[in-house]
C-alpha cells in the first residue's frame, strides 16, 4: 500500500500508530484527572496503558502487514518502512514490559501517581516519532518529547532526594546535549538548505567534497545522539541517573530511550549522510572507547544497579559497532541486537526491582548471595539475562552479538570485531559474579530474600523475557527475516553491500 504524502488522508494513515497512541494518552489523561486517589485507580491506569500499547502495536502491525510505504516523493516529514515498524515494536514492547514491572513497584514504593503511565505513553510516542522522523525537525521534536517525559519519570519518586537529583542531572545534561544537537541540525540545514533527510542526502550526493559546515553539523548531530545512547565520553550521566531513578524507569531508559536514539541515528546517518565518509571514522572511535570504557568501568562496581548501568553503556558500544559497520547488514544486526538487549536488560532490572527497596541503589551484587536456593526461578531468570548480556550461546544475546560480528567483519572491520569479543570477555568479569553470588555463595542471613517479591504482572514480564531470550537464542529465524527486510528498507541504495544472503 503506497501512501501519498500530499494527501492528508494518507499522511494521517501513515501516522496511524502515533495517532492511536496520542488518542490513548488523552483518554488516559482524562481518566487520571477523574480518578487518581487509590492504588486501584493506578492499576486501572496501568491496564489502560497496556491496552493502549497493544492497540498501537496492532496498528503498527496493520501498516506493516500492508507494506505501507510513503512515496513517491521524499519530502514527507515521516518515513514509512519496515525499519520504523520494527523499531516501533521494540519501543512498545519495552514500554509494555516496563508497565508490567511497574504495577508492583509503584504500589510498593507508594508512588500513587497515575500520570506516570501518561508520561510513559508520551515518552513512547516520542520514541516512535524519532524512529519515524524523516526530517531532522521531526526527529528533534520527538527526541524532546521523549526526553521531557523521561526527565519527569526519573524524578518521579519525589520523596527521595536521589530521584530528584537523578532527574536534575539528566535534565541539565540532556538540555545541554540537545543544544548541541540543535546546533548540528542548524548547520546541516545551512549546508544543504533543508532538514529533510532524503533531500540532505541528495544534496550531499551532488555536493562532492562535504563542506566544513556540513561536517561540523554532522559531528554535533552525532554528539547529540551519542549523549542519549550514553556513549563514552557522553555517558557520565547514565550511571548516576540510572542509579537514582525508580527501577522501572531505569529499565525504560536503558532500553527504550537508547533504542530510539539509535534508531534515529541510523536513519540520519544512512539516509542523510550515507555518502559522507567522516562519520564511519568518528563512530569507530566512539564504539571502541565505549566498549572498553563501559566494560572496564563496570568491573569496578559493587552495586548491581550501577553495574547494569555501565553494562548498558558497554552494550551501547556493541550497538555502535553495528552502526559503524553500516549497510543493511549493520542495520539488521542492530535491530536484532537491540531486541535482544531490550529483553535481557529489562529482565535484569525487573529482578532487581523485585529484590530491592527504596530505589535499589543499595543492592550490592553480593546481596544476591543464596538467591538461587530461596528464589530459584528468579535466580534462573537473572542468570539467563546475565548470560545473554554476556553473549553466551543459546541466548538471544549471543545471536545478536554474532550478527553484529558478521556485519562488522563483512564490512572489513575485523579489528572492531576483535575488540568487541575481547571486551565481552572482560564483561564476564562482572556478569559472572552475579551468577556466582546467586548460586555459589550462601545467603548472608537466613531470611535474606524473604521479601523478594514479584507480582503476577512482574512474573509475566520476566517469563516473557526469559522465553524470548531462549527462543531467539535457539530459533532466531523469524527475527532475522524481520530484521533483514527492515535493514534493507533503510538502505534502498547501500543494501547487500557484502552481506551474506
Amino acid at each position, binding site marked *: 500500500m503506497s501512501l501519498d504524502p500530499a494527501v492528508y488522508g494518507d499522511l494521517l494513515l501513515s501516522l496511524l500508530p502515533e495517532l492511536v497512541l496520542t488518542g490513548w494518552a488523552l483518554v488516559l489523561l482524562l481518566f487520571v484527572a477523574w480518578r487518581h486517589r487509590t492504588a486501584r485507580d493506578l492499576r486501572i491506569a496501568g491496564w489502560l496503558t497496556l491496552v493502549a500499547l497493544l492497540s498501537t502495536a496492532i496498528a503498527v502491525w496493520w501498516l506493516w502487514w500492508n507494506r505501507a510505504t510513503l512515496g513517491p516523493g521524499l519530502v514527507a516529514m515521516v518515513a514509512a518502512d519496515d525499519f520504523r515498524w520494527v523499531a516501533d515494536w521494540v519501543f512498545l514492547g519495552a514500554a509494555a514490559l516496563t508497565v508490567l514491572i511497574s504495577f508492583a513497584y509503584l504500589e510498593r514504593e507508594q508512588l500513587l501517581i497515575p500520570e506516570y503511565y501518561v508520561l510513559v505513553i508520551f515518552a513512547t510516542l516520542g520514541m516512535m516519532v524519532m524512529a519515524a522522523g524523516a526530517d531532522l525537525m521531526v526527529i528533534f521534536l520527538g527526541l524532546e518529547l521523549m526526553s521531557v517525559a523521561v526527565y519527569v519519570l526519573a524524578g518521579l519518586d519525589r520523596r527521595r532526594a536521589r530521584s530528584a537529583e537523578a532527574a536534575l542531572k539528566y535534565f541539565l545534561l540532556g538540555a545541554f546535549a540537545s543544544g548541541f544537537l540543535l546546533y548540528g541540525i542548524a548547520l546541516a540545514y545551512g549546508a544543504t538548505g533543508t532538514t529533510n533527510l532524503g533531500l540532505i542526502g541528495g544534496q550531499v550526493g551532488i555536493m562532492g567534497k562535504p563542506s566544513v559546515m556540513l561536517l561540523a553539523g554532522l559531528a554535533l548531530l552525532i*554528539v547529540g545522539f551519542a549523549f542519549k545512547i550514553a556513549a563514552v565520553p557522553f555517558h557520565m550521566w547514565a550511571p548516576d541517573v540510572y542509579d537514582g531513578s525508580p527501577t522501572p524507569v531505569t529499565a525504560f531508559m536503558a532500553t527504550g530511550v537508547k533504542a530510539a536514539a539509535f534508531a534515529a541515528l541510523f536513519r540520519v546517518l544512512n539516509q542523510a549522510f550515507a555518502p559522507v565518509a567522516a562519520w564511519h571514522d568518528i563512530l569507530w572511535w566512539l564504539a571502541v572507547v565505549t566498549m572498553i570504557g563501559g566494560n*572496564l568501568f563496570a*568491573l569496578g562496581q559493587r552495586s548491581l544497579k550501577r553495574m547494569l548501568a555501565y553494562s548498558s553503556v558497554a552494550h551501547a558500544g556493541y550497538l555502535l559497532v553495528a552502526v559503524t559497520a553500516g549497510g543493511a547488514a549493520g542495520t539488521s544486526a542492530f535491530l536484532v541486537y537491540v531486541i535482544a538487549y531490550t529483553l535481557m536488560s529489562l529482565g535484569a532490572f525487573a529482578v532487581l526491582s523485585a529484590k530491592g527497596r527504596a530505589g535499589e541503589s543499595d543492592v550490592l551484587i553480593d546481596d544476591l548471595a543464596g538467591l538461587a536456593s530461596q528464589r530459584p526461578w528468579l535466580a534462573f531468570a537473572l542468570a539467563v539475562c546475565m548470560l545473554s548480556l554476556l553473549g553466551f550461546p543459546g541466548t538471544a544475546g549471543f545471536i545478536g552479538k554474532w550478527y553484529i560480528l558478521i556485519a562488522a567483519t563483512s564490512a572489513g572491520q575485523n579489528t572492531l570485531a576483535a575488540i568487541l569479543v575481547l571486551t565481552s570477555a572482560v564483561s564476564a568479569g562482572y556478569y559472572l559474579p552475579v551468577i556466582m553470588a546467586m548460586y555459589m555463595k550462601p545467603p548472608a542471613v537466613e531470611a535474606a530474600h524473604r521479601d523478594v517479591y514479584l507480582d503476577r504482572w512482574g512474573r509475566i514480564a520476566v517469563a516473557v523475557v526469559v522465553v524470548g531470550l531462549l527462543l531467539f537464542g535457539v530459533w532466531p529465524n523469524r527475527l532475522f527475516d524481520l530484521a533483514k527486510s527492515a535493514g534493507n528498507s533503510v538502505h534502498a541504495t547501500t543494501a547487500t553491500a557484502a552481506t551474506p544472503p
Partner: protein
Amino acid sequence: MTGTAVDLIWLAPALALLGFVLNGTLALTRPNAKTLVSVIGAGVLLAAFAVSIAIFSAFAGLHAEEPFVFRYWSWIPVGTLQIDVAFQVDQLSLVMLLVVTGVGSLIHLFSIGYMKEDPGYARYFAYLNLFVFFMLVLVLGASFPVMFVGWEGVGLCSYLLIGFWFTEEQNANAGRKAFIMNRIGDFGFMVAMFMIFWSTGSLDFGTVFTHAPNALAAGGRTITVITLFLFLGCTGKSAQIPLYTWLPDAMAGPTPVSALIHAATMVTAGVYLVARCNLLFAMAPVSSAVVAGVGALTALFAATIALKQWDIKKVLAYSTISQLGYMFLGVGTGAISAGMFHLITHAFFKALLFLGSGSVIYALHRAYHHTHSHEDAQDMRNMGGLARYMPWTTALMWIATLAIAGVPPLSGFFSKDEILTAANARGHADPIWLVFWGLAVIAALLTAFYMTRLMLYTFHGPNRTGEKEQAHLHEAPWIMTGPLLVLGVLSAAGGLINIPELYHGNAWLHHWLEPITQASAPLLPAVPLSSSTEWLLVGIAVAVAVVGIVGAWRLLKPEALVPARSAPEERGFARVLRNKWYVDEIYDALIVRPLVWLSREVLWKQVDQRIIDGAAVNGAARGARALGWANRWLQSGQVGVYVAVFVVGVLLILWRATS
C-alpha cells in the same frame, strides 16, 4: 608350528601368569592360605621348568638353524609398524628359559621356608610369579617391544619386591630408586628402538638383523648411537656404571628375591640383550669397546667396594655388579658364548651364595627374634664361627666361593677364564682390550679376596652373635637347604656345559650358540691365540685366584673383629670404600637435589605461581579491575566534571570531523 613340544612355548609364561593371578587373588582375599599359595607358587614354576626341559629337548632334536617365531596376536599395527605379540624360540632364548625356570624353581622352593612367617606370604609369591612371567616374556620376546614389555615388567616386579616390606621407608625408597634408575635405562632402550625402526623399518629381531647390514653402515654413526643407547638400557637393568647404585640398595628386599632377581636372572637381562643384538654391537666397534670397557671398569670398581662392606648381602650385591661387569666384558669383546657361559655359572653360584647368606640371615634373625634383640642380622660383625652351627650351608657356600673366585675345576673358573682369554685375544687386535683385561685380572684378585673375607668373617673365627643367641643358631630347614644342595652341585659341575677345546672339551655351549653368533663372527677381528699363550693366561687366572684367597686368609683376623654395635668407624681409604666412593652422595648432590630444588623453588613457586599465574593472569585481571576503580574519581557525582568531559568529547569529535 613345528608340531613338537616347542609349540608349547607359550605355556611357560602362561603358567607363571596363572600363578600370579591365583596368588594375587588369594593375597587380596585369603592372605593366610599359605599352603595353597606355596603349592601354586612353586608348582607353576616347577611345571614351567618341566615344560622348558621338554621344549629344550624337542628343539635340540630339530637342529634348527633359524629361530622359530610364534605369533599370537597383532599388538600394535600402525602403517608399516607391525608389532605382534610373538615369542621367539632359539638357542639363546632357550638357555635363558632354562636358567630362569630352573633357578627360579629352586628359589621358589627356598622361599617357602624363608618367608614362612611373613604376613605378606601370598603377595610375595604373587609378585615372584609375576616376575618369572615377565622374565620369560623378556627372554622369549621376538621383537624389541615385546622384549621391552618383559624388560619393564621385571623392573616393576623388582620394584615391588624390593619394597616388599614397604613399612620401612628405606625399603620403599630402595624400590623407587631401582625403578627410576631402570627407567633411565629404559629411556635409552626406547630411543634405540625408535632409531632401529626408522633405519631398518621393523622391530622384529629377525627382520632387524637381516636388514641391519644393508640398512646401516658398519661402524657408522647411526649404528654406534643405536648400540650406545641400547647399552644405556643395559647399564640400568644390569647395574653397570653409571647406573649401578640401585642394586646394593635393592638388598632391602627379601633375600630369595636378591638371589633370583638381583643375581641370577633380571640383572643379566642386559647381557642377554647385548648377546641378542650381538650383530649390531659387532657392527659398532666403538660401542663394543664402550661395553667391554664399562664392564671391566665396573668389575674392578664394584670389587673394590665389596672389600669393605660389612652387610653380607651388600658384599654379594657388589660382587654381582662386578661379575656382571665380567659378562659385559665378554659380550662386549664379542665372546658371546663366554658371556652367556659366565651368565649361567654366575646364576648358579651367585644364587647359591645369596640363598646361603639367606639361611645365615634366617638363622641369626631367628636367634635374635628369640632373644628379642634388635641387632642387625645381616652384619658380618655379628656372625663368625657359624660353621659350627650350620655345616651344610658353610660347605655349600665354600663351593660357591671357590667357584666365583675362579678356582679350577669349578664352574666359575671356566667361564671367567674364557672371558679373560677372549679379552686378551681381542687385545692383540686393538690394544685397548689389554687394559680391560688388566682391569679384569685385578678384579679377579679382589674377588677372590673379598669372597674369602666374607666366608672368613661369617663362618670362621669366634662367634660374635651373642651369648644368649648362640643357643638358637642352627641349620635352616630342608626346604631351604635342599635347593642349596642342588645349586651347590651346579656351581661345582656347571663348567661341564662348556669345557673349551683347550682341555679337549667339546665347548658345547659355544657351538650351541653358533646360530646366534655366526652373523657377527665375521665382523670381529679373529685372533687365534697359541695354546701356550692360553695356558699362560690360565696360569695367571689361577694364580690370581689363589693369591686372593690365601692373601685374605693370611691378612684378615676374624678374632680382632668386634660386634657391629661397638665397632669403630673406618678411617682413610677404607672409609672411602666403606662409603662406596660416595657415589650415591655425589649423585644426590649433583642431580637429585638440584632437580628437586629447581622444580619446587624455581619452576613451581616462581615461574608457575608468581610469574605466569600471579603476574600475567591475575595481574591482568587486577589491572582491569583497577582501571574500573580508577574511574570513580571522574564519576564523582559532580555535574561540572561530567560537562567538562562532555565538552572534551565534543571537541575531539568536531576536530576529527572537520579536519
